């Protein structure tokens, strides 16, 4: 079995062949599903933990502090210690809460983000499912997470949770529109919804650069709307701690709270990966059409590192937002979406369609 870090497709397909030769198709598919499930689960946990660490370090950097530095070198094991603490905390049962809904709400949130992560291309050939409607699928499954938040707020039987859930619902439902429309702008340019085709289409330059001004506008709108959709500051009204204690997860403790926490960070990771894939070429190295020597030099870095680097860059920008801007009020938030972002987006799609029609893009 050949392991080539530049093209993992040969590795995965030879592994698939190996399984198909030794097992019946039913068991081969079942084993593959289990392996992919475990791999994504492990990835999910590790990335979630280290995003929390990264957030604390970035926050400390923005505020001229040191940040976690006691557990391990540079506080590297801090979040692992936190996780162990959360696992050992008591799960407090709430009187007069709807127990069933209270308990399934964290799972709905986490399953929605888990389903989205399966369709993300991590590297060449490292792509669990490649639907021909890739982006649409990710939008569809991630739109279900809000149901979990709403249920959590209602089932807690607590007014702060309820207000937090309502705010969060209003926010996610309205900003989903801007996220979708800014992605549609790039779909017009790429001519496909399939993520692998979109990445391949950026062989001669990322869409952010080849799509002229409309692509840049779409990128900015996407960044704002995606930050809002993941309920992160400055749009974190749903858990505005000064007014609502902790918003929709006020009543949750222990591992159930950790699920919400993890899902929030993973949602940030997912939108950052989408931004990296759609606008910055995903795992595609930085290429400029026609510069063969330059492109060959860029190809030396394996695709998976390009992907991680771009995603980390977007995540850093989103953390920068959080620690720079003050929190918006709910009316400002809705005004921003409905009176500014949405009209800009709609005009932007028309401009992009015109650019593509005239062939002005590179």
């Amino acid at each position, binding site marked *: 079995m050949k392991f080539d870090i530049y093209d993992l497709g040969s590795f995965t397909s030879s592994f698939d062949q190996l399984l198909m030769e030794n097992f019946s*198709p*039913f068991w081969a*598919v*079942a084993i593959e599903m289990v392996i992919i499930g475990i791999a994504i689960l492990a990835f999910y946990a590790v990335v979630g933990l280290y995003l929390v660490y990264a957030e604390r370090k970035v926050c400390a950097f923005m505020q001229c502090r040191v940040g976690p530095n006691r557990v391990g070198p540079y506080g590297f094991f801090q979040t692992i210690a936190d996780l162990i603490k959360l696992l050992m905390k008591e799960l407090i049962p709430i009187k*007069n*809460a*709807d127990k*069933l*809904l209270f308990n*399934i709400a964290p799972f709905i949130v986490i399953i929605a983000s888990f389903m989205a992560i399966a369709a993300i291309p991590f590297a060449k050939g490292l792509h669990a499912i490649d*639907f*021909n*409607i890739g982006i*649409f*699928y990710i*939008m*569809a*499954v991630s*739109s*279900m997470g*809000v*149901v979990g938040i*709403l*249920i959590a*707020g*209602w*089932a807690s*039987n607590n007014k702060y949770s*309820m207000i937090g*859930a*309502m705010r969060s*619902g209003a926010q996610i*439902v309205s900003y*989903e529109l801007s996220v979708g429309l800014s992605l549609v702008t790039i779909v017009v340019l790429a001519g*496909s*919804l399939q993520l692998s085709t979109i990445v391949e289409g950026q062989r001669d330059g990322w869409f952010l650069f080849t799509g002229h001004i409309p692509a840049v506008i779409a990128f900015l709108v996407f960044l704002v709307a995606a930050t809002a959709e993941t309920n992160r500051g400055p749009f974190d009204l749903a858990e505005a701690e000064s007014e609502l204690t902790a918003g929709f997860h006020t009543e949750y403790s222990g591992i159930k709270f950790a699920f919400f926490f993890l899902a929030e960070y993973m949602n940030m990771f997912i939108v950052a990966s989408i931004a990296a894939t759609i606008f910055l070429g995903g795992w595609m190295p930085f290429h400029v059409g026609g510069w063969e020597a330059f492109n060959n030099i860029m190809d030396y870095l394996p695709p998976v590192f390009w992907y991680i680097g771009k995603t980390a860059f977007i995540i850093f920008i989103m953390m920068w937002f959080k620690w720079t801007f003050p929190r918006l009020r709910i009316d400002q938030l809705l005004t921003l979406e409905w009176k500014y972002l949405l009209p800009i987006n709609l005009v932007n799609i028309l401009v992009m369609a015109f650019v593509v029609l005239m062939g002005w893009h590179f």
Partner: protein
Amino acid sequence: MSIHELMFYLFSGMILLFSVLTVTSRRILRAAVYLLFVLVSTAGIYFMLNYQFLAAVQLTLYAGGIVVLIIFSILLTSHISQKFEPLGVKKMVFSALAVAAGALLSIMTILDFGFDTVVTTSQNPDMELIGTSLLSYEKNGYVLPFEVISVLLLAAMVASIVIAKKEKSK
């Protein structure tokens, strides 16, 4: 049993179970959540049939749209302690009869239809095909229903804005 059959039984079992729970649950938000599970399982069946576009539409429109709207309205109107009264025996018997008659009628119709056993190659319509046939006015084009629905939606939107608009204070 092939993996397809297994998945089919899994999804249809979930659909049946949660459909029954949706109408028998006495707490309104639980009913809404069971409805969500029914809709997601239906999307699962579409995925199994390799019709991913319809599955994603089902997820965005029903699971992410309509159920969210239903839950929103429940959150605004009802309290957690609210429970529906259990139905009387008479009502239960008659509604069970009505449901059984409806189910019987649909099953009879399906069995009577006599599906052709022609094996066609499975088609996976891509977005381009769907997009062009939506806006095509030739044979098999859908431009008229598309336009009619968009006018209807526009009218609904204008109407809701008019209703929601605040009166100007005099």
